[in-house]
């Protein structure tokens, strides 16, 4: 607790005073940096905000950089050349923006915003004026010519239309689907070709994973007799999450952070919830509403807890995957931000070493989180289909 508060002050002081000179980098500073990193990874929101408010034009805004990397975006931004100069150039893959407005379907390419996400660039399409404010598209109210932002940066004179845009997360999701289909269709064809069902090529890589999901996840969690029905869902979820976790770690894709997006995890958690609820047998519902084997007052006491439990299970699934993946991204980006916060090349080796370390952990986490999501889904299915044996 002492160490933490000490570092809070040090870190805040560093930020307020400005720059830590390279000459003053001593061992103790290094130690402090380490703690600061840990700290920043947890509380990056608040502190980055301080930096933003107190800074001049040159000030590096860690929070906005991190948030822009972690959140969704309309274009697939690869790199910015000559930043801050006359011939500044963005290399971006433009993606389609699809909106449902009062005037019907409106589509245009994300490149029409010219890499602006502060609401300056106004795109006029289909009788509406659209601006991009922090990667959210707003439609200006009739008669307005420029977007007005309130103190928190939200537009006051614009509405959000229904947004079906192919954002970079959707784009990456489709790429991951293409890769998954390629891998598993090829693997499946390998079996068809071989006369004795012996795996070869990519099938021999895929098979242990599939068998792992079957023997280590589905069978023990659901049971020998009922697991077959749930295999397609479990396998699909496992590989879909895993491959998107991996894609999220590829730096050149600019951290398209699909599995760290709460929309994605929410959809998967809802699927698990729906399947659990619909496969719940008499025994399952009995355990929720009228717990057998306990006295009546206890039954009455347990019922509301169990009913809440139906919903907390998928919610925990949703938050666990989202938070783990997003936290990993934030930590790596925060470590990298240190170089720019301290404006010192001397920090770079530390930052790189630490992000390499975290990066390796993240590689393990990609598989672990996919496994945990699948195991817990299977566990819930198992609980829903368990037969009474009291």
């Amino acid at each position: 607790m002492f160490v933490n508060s000490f570092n809070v002050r040090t870190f805040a002081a560093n930020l307020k005073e400005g720059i830590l000179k390279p000459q003053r980098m001593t061992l103790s500073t290094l130690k402090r940096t380490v703690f600061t990193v840990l700290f920043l990874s947890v509380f990056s929101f608040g502190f980055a905000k301080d930096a933003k408010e107190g800074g001049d034009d040159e000030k590096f805004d860690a929070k906005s950089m991190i948030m822009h990397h972690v959140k969704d975006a309309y274009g697939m931004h690869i790199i910015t050349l000559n930043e801050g100069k006359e011939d500044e150039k963005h290399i971006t893959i433009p993606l389609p923006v699809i909106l449902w407005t009062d005037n019907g379907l409106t589509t245009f390419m994300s490149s029409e915003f010219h890499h602006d996400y502060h609401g300056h660039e106004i795109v006029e399409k289909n009788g509406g004026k659209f601006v991009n404010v922090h990667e959210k598209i707003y439609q200006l109210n009739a008669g307005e010519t420029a977007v007005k932002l309130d103190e928190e940066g939200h537009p006051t004179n614009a509405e959000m239309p229904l947004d079906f845009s192919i954002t970079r997360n959707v784009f990456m999701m489709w790429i991951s689907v293409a890769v998954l289909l390629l891998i598993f269709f090829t693997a499946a064809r390998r079996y068809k070709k071989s006369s004795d069902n012996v795996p070869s090529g990519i099938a021999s890589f895929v098979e242990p994973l599939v068998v792992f999901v079957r023997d280590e996840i589905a069978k023990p969690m659901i049971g020998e007799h009922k697991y077959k029905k749930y295999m397609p869902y479990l396998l699909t979820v496992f590989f879909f999450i895993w491959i998107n976790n991996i894609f999220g770690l590829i730096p050149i894709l600019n951290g398209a952070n699909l599995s760290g997006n709460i929309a994605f995890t929410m959809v998967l958690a809802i699927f698990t919830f729906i399947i659990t609820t619909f496969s719940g047998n008499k025994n399952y519902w009995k355990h929720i509403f009228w717990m057998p084997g306990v006295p009546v007052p206890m039954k009455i006491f347990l019922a509301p807890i169990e009913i809440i439990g139906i919903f907390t299970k998928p919610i925990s699934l949703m938050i666990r995957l989202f938070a783990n993946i997003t936290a990993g991204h934030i930590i790596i980006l925060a470590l990298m931000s240190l170089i720019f916060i301290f404006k010192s090349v001397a920090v770079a080796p530390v930052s790189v070493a630490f992000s390499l370390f975290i990066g390796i952990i993240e590689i393990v986490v990609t598989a672990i989180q996919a496994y945990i999501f699948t195991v817990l889904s299977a566990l819930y299915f198992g609980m829903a289909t368990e037969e009474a044996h009291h």
Partner: protein
Amino acid sequence: MDLIKPGFGLVFWTIITFLILLFLLRKFAWKPILGAVSEREEGIKEALASAENARKEMENLQADNERILQEARAEREAMLKDAREIREQTIAKAETEAQEKASKIIEKAQAAIESEKKAAMAELKSHVAGLSLDIAEKVVRNELSNKDKQLKLVEDMLGEATLK
């Protein structure tokens, strides 16, 4: 707090994409892969079971062989033993028979000798009697003609009739 607000567009596309992915993978990937894997596992299980059966059969066969061999050996021994007994019996029987026959022959011979001896004795007796009578006759005759002669005759006669 945008971070924890699910965006509508992404939710929409994720649902559609996931359902399509689930459908496609289920039909064209999981079914063939899991089918092939379980088919192969069944095959392996069957092969193992049949190997086990074959092993058991083999064991049975071996046990049978062993048993048959044992029986054959026992039979041979029994036969040898029988043969030996029969031989001994035969020899013993032959011996006793021979003994019996020999003793019967001896008995017969003895009986014959006895009867011959009796007959000879009887004949001898009758001869002796006849001779005695003859002697007596001659003696009587000589007696009757000349006394000296008669005596001499008797003495001669007696001298002739040496009993052997």
